[in-house]
């Protein structure tokens, strides 16, 4: 599988994401934000960082980039799209995922290891890969605007449809996310976004290798 990793001015974790895609057995290449053509990649990672400085609202400018138009098309066609941290914010701003990310409850940037629960998906064949992984993943989080929010009615609907992908384990919801939500997916399941950084959990020397499962879970959509 060939992954494309978007690069905006201000991206920070794009090289880490490239490396992670390769560690899980894929090929990976950087895609400059100006590119309207994704060059035939099978899946996309929208990486972490501070696209365009995030001075307006995290992800609010990056969503308008030509590459994001192409990503929306790939998502509509059922291709895998993974948004990590700032990438998650971009996907929410672009309307590819429901909800929004607010400033952390304590109003401080937080960098720490977090335990995530992989949440059951709906009874769709595509999503069963997630259920197979049901377990706790140890993955680092690092963000200032990671408090997931959506209105209750929307959350109820998302949960009914199995759109909550990852929740913080007890005692690990450091940013105050509603219903402990760490990551969500679209109805089809091919677009996933999460605040913690699976690309920083692929090498035993730098922490854990649990992040590999987050990438692997999307390979079925390629």
């Amino acid at each position, binding site marked *: 599988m060939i992954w494309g990793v978007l690069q905006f*001015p201000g991206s*920070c974790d794009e090289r880490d994401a490239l490396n992670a895609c390769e560690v899980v057995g894929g090929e990976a290449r950087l895609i400059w934000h100006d590119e309207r053509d994704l060059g035939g990649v099978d899946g996309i990672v929208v990486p972490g960082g501070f696209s365009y400085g995030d001075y307006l609202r995290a992800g609010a400018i990056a969503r308008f980039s030509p590459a994001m138009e192409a990503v929306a098309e790939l998502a509509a066609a059922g291709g895998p799209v993974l948004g990590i941290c700032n990438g998650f914010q971009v996907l929410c701003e672009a309307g590819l995922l429901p909800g929004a990310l607010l400033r952390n409850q304590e109003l401080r940037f937080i960098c720490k290891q977090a335990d995530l629960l992989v949440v059951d998906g709906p009874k769709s064949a595509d999503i069963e890969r997630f259920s197979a992984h049901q377990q706790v993943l140890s993955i*680092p989080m690092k963000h200032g605007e990671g408090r997931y929010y959506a209105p209750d009615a929307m959350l109820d609907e998302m949960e009914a449809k199995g759109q909550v992908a990852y929740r913080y384990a007890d005692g690990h919801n450091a940013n105050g996310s509603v219903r402990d939500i760490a990551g969500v997916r679209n109805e089809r399941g091919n677009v996933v976004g999460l605040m913690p950084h699976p690309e920083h959990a692929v090498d035993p020397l*730098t922490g854990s290798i649990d992040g590999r499962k987050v990438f692997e879970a999307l390979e079925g959509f390629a």
Partner: protein
Amino acid sequence: MTGDSTMPRHRELGLTDSEYDLIVEKLGREPNAVELAMFSLLWSEHCAYKHSRKLLGRLPTDGPRVVMGPGENAGAVDVGSGYAVAFKVESHNHPSAVEPFQGAATGVGGILRDVFAIGARPIAVLDSLRFGELDSVRSRHLLDGAVRGIGHYGNSIGVPNVGGEIYFEEPYEHNCLVNAMCIGFAKTEAMVRAAAAGIGNTVVLMGATTGRDGIGGASVLASAELGEGDDAKRPTVQVGDPFEESKVLECCLELLEKGLLVSLQDLGAAGLTSSAGEMASAGGVGIDIDVAKVPLREADMEPFEIMVSESQERMLAVVEPSRVAEVRAICDKWQTGSAEIGVVTDSGRVRILKAGEVVGDMPVEALVDGCPLYDLEPEAPAGWIYGNRQTLAPSADSEATLLALLAAPSIASKQWIFQQYDSIVGSRTVRRPEAADAAVLQLPESGNAIAVSIDGNGRRVACEPYNGTVEAVLECAQNLACVGAEPLGLTNCLNFGNPEKPVPAWQLDRAISGLAVVCEELGVPVVGGNVSLYNEGPDGPIYPTPVVAMVGELPNPAQTAPMGFAKAGDAIALLGPFAPTLQGSELAKQRGELAMGLPEPDVAAVAAACATVREAVRAGRVASAHDVSDGGLACALAESAISSGLGFRADLQDLRERGCSPEEALFGEGTGGFVLSGERTELEALGALVIGEVGSTTIELAAGDRSLVIGLVDATEAWRSLDARAEAVA
């Protein structure tokens, strides 16, 4: 700039009358406003090192692994396989004391530019901070602002903050210290120097536009004491934009990788004045700069303002005329500015033009190297010149004493701080903050890893500047040994008081001597440094604070020891020439008993202990390694226990043979001690003294007639108590 209208302009700008006369002599006429502004900056302490340069000549700077030494934007050492690691520490003390968020943020921005200016990609940031006591509202405000500022800049630009150190001491109350360190990684052959070359080449200014921020920062803020009315100096603090820096960084690295630049220099203190002057000086050429071609934030800026502006996120490059279009196209790609503002000449002069008309014309030599260097007039103080404040009764029992030490803000866990920094971006961080004695970064490109430690206990240096500085260097060496690293090079930031006063002059003189001798004995070259003087408040000078940072190499990133114990049943041992006393210790501070004097470290014996520990860690013969530092052996053992969640029992009775009282054995401080854990036979084979065993949920310590038992839970609570106290800021 505030001013007294009766004061001559040159004095307002910080020049003495005799310095002014010398400028007139060198120019053969009175300087105009542009020239005076430029001289005042390049002849400031911050740029000219006029009170420290003579002393700095004592430092050893050569070594087989040195790639770049002092005088470049950053020092660099060879790490093998054709790669080098660059590093530098710089202060941003006075800006942070005036406006902590932007002061600290731009401190990080500035040190990053120093490193990518030589063609190295920044891979880590560390910082060394000093504030007044944590119970002061001012200190908590400064701490909060500085930490947010460091996080804001470093997090946004994607460079991990992997470690550092912080002390809270009364003498920093009015003059906090913010020293930032950056580590870079580069292919050795791709690195560039900052010397302008090639007559007729184009000088290109890249990055942000130039505004009125930071005008006079180097002379007004960095080269004078802080005092009343400092709020009026706020306009001299620069404002940082990490997004701009991120673009300039990537742009510069791409330009260098494509070989499009002849040379590159960052714009830091004194802005265009120092970068243009220093580039010309290093290359032995002249430079013409046309201020009308500099992109401005405000249309009506005067030529002198443009030349001295300290607007951030700017770089100056020398480019062959035929490559200028290509360079500017890459700047456009990264959405960062570029302008052709000047040309390299053979005149040996820095000429400032405004739309072609000459508004300043000075010999490079006079401007950059013409500042007189001064001898200090050092005089030892008659006794302890700093205060003493008792916060712990000498009658406190051993349990209460250990808990008070673990809760001391300078000793307690700094988790509250480092969790506000991204410590993992870049995928190199093998040991995160407080996981080991030194930060460890893997280098997959060269197959090995580096370790970094930064240290400088000003209180101990105040007790005896020579021995205290030797200890700071040894502490770094010990920290590196704990993760199996061998020192490659050292850099430093010398934070001292007013060098024109006898006691700070004595402290500086003694500290630099200590630094020179210990580096010589250890065989560790000093590859760069920074000096920050005039760190004084209304109550006098800060503690003399030489912050030293050491970079070491380890062959295998998988083979490093954590500071926490590994498993119950392991033996605990003490290794090294550790003979603690209460002099200069945290306990002496809490009892209000600080006085002059500190034992002389046995450098050779400490170096030998470091080698033993290093080899043992590399060979996997120890399960944990932690150096004995602030709070003594009791605190070192407790930290290894808290870090792992494993209690222990230890008897320090054998330290009696080293002339230590029970109290000194428990809480005394000194250099050269390592706490190791592992198989008893392995530890004994290393020559270590077995003192206890890992296990249980308590900390049990005995030393002669003193003994203590506390729950690991209570010790952990004390050590973690900084979080709540620092948060009490809002």
